[in-house]
């Protein structure tokens, strides 16, 4: 699917993240934008979603069958697929920290080109707590940051995070409405670009120097 100019940034991001996922993958989606990813999984594949409060097999809530004992990690009613399993918090994080989750998708306040992530302390605001984020990014096989490229024009992808870290050297991919970045030892590689942006525009919106592949980035498709 081609990206259109009318498409909302959040939809571009959620659709592109969904493209990472393969049949049988085990995935944890953070609250907010990452949750949208579930909408765009092709029907021919099955992805299993984890909810860190203690389940595998999370799905959307059926508003006609709200079960107070069945909630997601935001405390909101959710659904469960046939074959969903439930467990306690220690087991939940054994799955997470033990490297059994294929992808964790979450938002960020800042990311830098060392794979460092800052997503839990908003300056000047009350600190809500890290919840499961620190364990999720340390433990998942692949960490995808899904966020809008800038915060009202201010850089969020930096040379060094300025906010307190969530974790060091954990981010594998950054997916924004402008591009897909891959973290490598040398820095952030501009793998794919939204055809409605130029490399120069993306670089201007980024606080770290991007590595552009010799033949240029691929066109971002959804």
């Amino acid at each position, binding site marked *: 699917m081609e990206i259109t100019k009318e498409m909302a940034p959040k939809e571009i991001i959620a659709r592109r993240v969904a493209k990472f996922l393969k049949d049988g993958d085990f995935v944890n989606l953070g609250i907010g934008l990452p949750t949208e990813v579930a909408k765009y999984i092709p029907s021919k594949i099955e992805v299993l979603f984890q*909810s*860190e*409060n*203690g*389940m595998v097999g999370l799905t959307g809530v059926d508003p006609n069958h709200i*079960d*107070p*004992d*069945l*909630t997601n*990690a*935001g*405390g909101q009613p959710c659904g*469960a697929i046939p074959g969903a399993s*439930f*467990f*306690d*918090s*220690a087991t*939940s*994080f054994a799955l*997470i*920290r033990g490297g059994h989750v294929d992808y964790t998708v979450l938002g960020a306040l800042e990311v830098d080109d060392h794979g*460092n992530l800052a997503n839990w302390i908003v300056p000047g605001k*009350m*600190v*809500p*707590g*890290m*919840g*499961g*984020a*620190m*364990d999720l990014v*340390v*433990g998942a096989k692949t960490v995808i940051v899904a966020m809008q490229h800038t915060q009202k024009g201010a850089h969020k992808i930096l040379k060094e995070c300025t906010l*307190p*870290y*969530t*974790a*060091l050297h954990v981010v594998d991919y950054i997916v924004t409405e402008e591009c897909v970045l891959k973290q490598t030892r040398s820095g952030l590689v501009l793998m794919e670009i939204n055809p409605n942006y130029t490399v120069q525009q993306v670089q201007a919106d980024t606080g770290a120097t991007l590595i552009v592949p010799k033949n240029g980035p691929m066109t971002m498709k959804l």
Partner: protein
Amino acid sequence: MKNKIIEKTDIRPLLKDGMSIMIGGFLSVGSAETVIDQVVASGVKNLTIYCNDGGLGEKRNKETGELIAGPKGAGKLIASGQCTTLYATHIGLNPLIGKKMNTGEMKVVLIPQGSFAEMIRAGGSGLGGIITPTGVGVDIIEQAEHVYKKIKLGDKKKKTYLIEKPLHADLTIIKGAVVDKLGNVYFNKTTQNFSRVMAYASDVVVCEAQKIVERGEIDGNAIHVPGVLVDYIVKEEK
């Protein structure tokens, strides 16, 4: 064997000023509301609470200010002012906690959720602590009072870990969907969360029961908390 089923008010003698209480539930899902109400009614003060999130705060209509729902779970003990120290992983859905932190009425210690679960499990399992990669490089965590030290371990490529303390409390309050008369507990769906590990990690365990059944009525393979850990059973009141 002695009867473990007690009246809700019978938990009062277990409560003391300054005690520590673990409260199961995740954003109050799975919290023992009937028992927590008794803790509120007892008026015990200066409680240290271990709870994933400090429960939910009261909900009011944003325009009229009318009360829609009172606080839930551990949130009741925040609202009542009885909880003065809270160990949690997330307090964003109970804004009263942040306010009380700012005024100095409450001390809040934030711990990563996986570490928190594991520290409670360690406290209940006789382990000296946990060794986790979570929080390495995060100054606030590395310097926290619940961290013993940073350590490098491993054969070839030495990895850095934090050694964190086991957690243990005076009392644990959990709620089960089905509890038999031996105290065996079966949880439903996502109500299991922290309650299972907390049942090991305190001196006394009170389990609220949605349903009380005879021994042998719960599948022995599906018992989440063996009855030997449960001291008292209180029937949930709706």
